[in-house]
């Protein structure tokens, strides 16, 4: 069974492009448009990897990661943060929340794909 990856971003076009790339590589994809939306969609799913933006309306990425880490089923799920912030405090916040990996935006779909395939094979 294909592994499922969740992509959380407020930009619909980014979600679309990432989804096309991931589905093409053989993953299943669930989209979330912000932190709150993502959390609500996690329930009852088996998700192997979460790729999430930091800066989003309603609930930002950092808060979302903190919430996710509280869920027993997702305690050890790897999370890649997508971030433009080069500021170290943002990274530290993400790290403290439980996301260890991040990609600096902007990136090319194949860059994300390569990063993903290191953590989870389809």
């Amino acid at each position, binding site marked *: 069974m294909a592994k499922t990856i969740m992509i959380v971003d407020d930009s619909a076009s980014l979600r679309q492009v990432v989804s096309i790339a991931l589905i093409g590589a053989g993953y299943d994809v669930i989209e979330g448009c912000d932190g709150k939306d993502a959390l609500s969609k996690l329930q009852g799913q088996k998700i192997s990897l979460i790729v999430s933006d930091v800066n989003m309306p309603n609930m930002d990425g950092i808060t979302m990661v903190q919430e996710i880490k509280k869920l027993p089923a997702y305690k050890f799920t790897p999370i890649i943060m997508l971030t433009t912030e080069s500021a170290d405090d943002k990274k530290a916040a993400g790290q403290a929340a439980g996301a260890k990996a*991040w990609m600096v935006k902007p990136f090319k779909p194949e860059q994300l794909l390569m990063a993903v395939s290191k953590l989870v094979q389809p």
Partner: protein
Amino acid sequence: MNMEQAFQTFLAESTELLQDMENKLLGFDNCDDPAESVNSIFRAVHTIKGSAGLFGLDDIVAFTHVVESVLDEVRSGSFVLDEPLINLLLQCKDYIGKMVDSIDGEAVLMAPEDLPVQAALEDALFAYLNTEHSTSAATALVGIDDADNYQSVSVIESDSAMANENWHISVYFGADVLRNGMDPLSFLRYLATLGDIVHIETVTDDLPGIEDMDAESCYLGYEINFHSSASKSQIEDVFEFVREDCQLKILPPYAKVSDFIEIIDNIQNDELKLGEILVRCGTLTQRELDNLLQMQNAVKEGGTHRLIGEIVVEDGLASSEVVTAALHRQAQGKKAKEKQAQTVRVDAEKLDHLINLIGELVIASAGIESETHLAGIASLVESAQTMTRLVEEVRESALNLRMVQIGETFNRFQRVVRDVSKELGKDIDLQIDGADTELDKTVIEKISDPLMHLVRNSIDHGIESPALRSQRNKPATGNVKLNAYHESGTIVIEVSDDGGGLNREKILQKARANGLVSAEAELSAHDINQLIFEAGFSTAEAVSNISGRGVGMDVVRRNIEALRGTVEIDSEYTVGTTIRIRLPLTLAIIDGFMMKVGDAFYVVPLDIVEECIELNANHSVGHDGRSYINLRGEVLPFIRLGDYFCQSGSNAKRENIVVIKYGSLKAGFVVDELMGEFQTVIKPLGPLFERVPGISGSTILGSGEVALILDASSLIHLVMQRDGKAISAAAQQSALH
């Protein structure tokens, strides 16, 4: 769902976000939650930037990055969003909208008049940032930062790793790897997609007793013998997500060292720093370099300054061989850069067009000059002279534009010599002299193939095998030398080696066997040497893939002759060979010397004219078209041009001899009248007359008449051949006197 749809989504989304941004900016003064307003403005720009990056729209990414940086400062409270900044941001919003509208396929095609607008906006934005114009946005990176827990650990002896063909990777995962959601096996699986894991050793030394073990912690390390053609940074990238959670050491296979050096030699960019060169060739990864630079800075603050090269070698990240090669490349780059600053690139076609026009100008001005002389108006003559002088200067500098140094062509042979000599198991040094000698670019382009052939010949046939060299008491390392210099209006290029030299006995035998020379013909050493330029001639015992098929030297000669040049060879058996190519400096316009015989005009390049003397009755003269005179104790053979070109008898009262020197040879041309210096625009003869011996081209005089350009070298050789014996006898005679 496809990319086209996603792109449409991007367009709609951008328009929406920009509209939202405008609304927020306009309503900023009256809004309830300024922080959230700023945040959503920031988010709009941020989202556009991120999506634009996905579609590869780098121009939009670069610009939005600057806007975003300013907004980030606002968000963090560095300055307030006041009226002027709002106005600026509105302009930026308009400009981003314009950029999105101008997307054409993969690129943003902005109208030229918009670019100054962008520059002005960026300047205004940078004023808020107080930073240099740097767009770090272009570097999309998967980030695992900070070198705090980075330590290069020597896990195994470097010797044992050096001895084998495979990469050696040692990776020790940190305790938190599992807790962070990383699966060590996942990385090993990914690694296996890059190559073969030949051997893997699981290191369990850190494994505590079962009662102390934390099920969520990772205690494992792996020593991996890895066979792959991947680069070091590709291999390192496999572990990027656990980079700070693990100790990683990647040792290259032994064979890689030579590869690195080769890559360094071939790097095109001349502005790289040492570290960058090492990264480029794959010795260091970017991450290792960043760590090193941090270490270097830290140490600098501590007082002692260490060079990157030293650190790299001491830490065993690269062998000193590679670093030396990189340092060498860096020094070269610096030199080349100094030169670059003073040059402008021009399309070669434009240059050719200019030269052609100047050729026409030269002819036209010659016409004006002769007309003014006929008209006899003093003031007109004077101004015509001024113009002629200027035309001459213009011609000089235009031709100079095409002159390039031969050094670049020579340097390419470094690689050839290294590769070919390695292939043949010979140890050969290439020595380059006269690299700054200039010649016409067209000539340089056409000469590099023949040169390549000669160099390969020198390596293959010239330099002996190491065993034979030691037998002949020569140093084990052979020497091939390229040299270039100017000599009387020509450029001379020499390829010489200290190898075996030509075996004249063998050449003569072969030539007789092939019927190139009749059995009883007696040839001088020089003539025998020249035989190797005949078609189908090769004495090499073994035909190797480097050279020796006998199609070489005659092709070389033909190529060189097509450039109006000559090639000759000096060689001494067991001592060495020098091949000398002599070429005209330019193929377009020359300073000529004009002579007249009867009604016909002849031109020779001025540079080869030594002197002009009167041919008086004292000189022994035979009217059979060849003879010689005694020129201050030297034998000077001469040729009557009128006779040679079968002109009906000249009736000049006095005859003159123009003494021509070509290489080491001298000869005289007997002519009726000396017309003096003349700017000669060389016109080709056309296919019908191309093969006429003694003539290399034609030129048009100001009067519209045609003059023939003499091929001095072939005429001299003609004279020498015909009079060879008589001259050597005469030379002996004059030596006796």
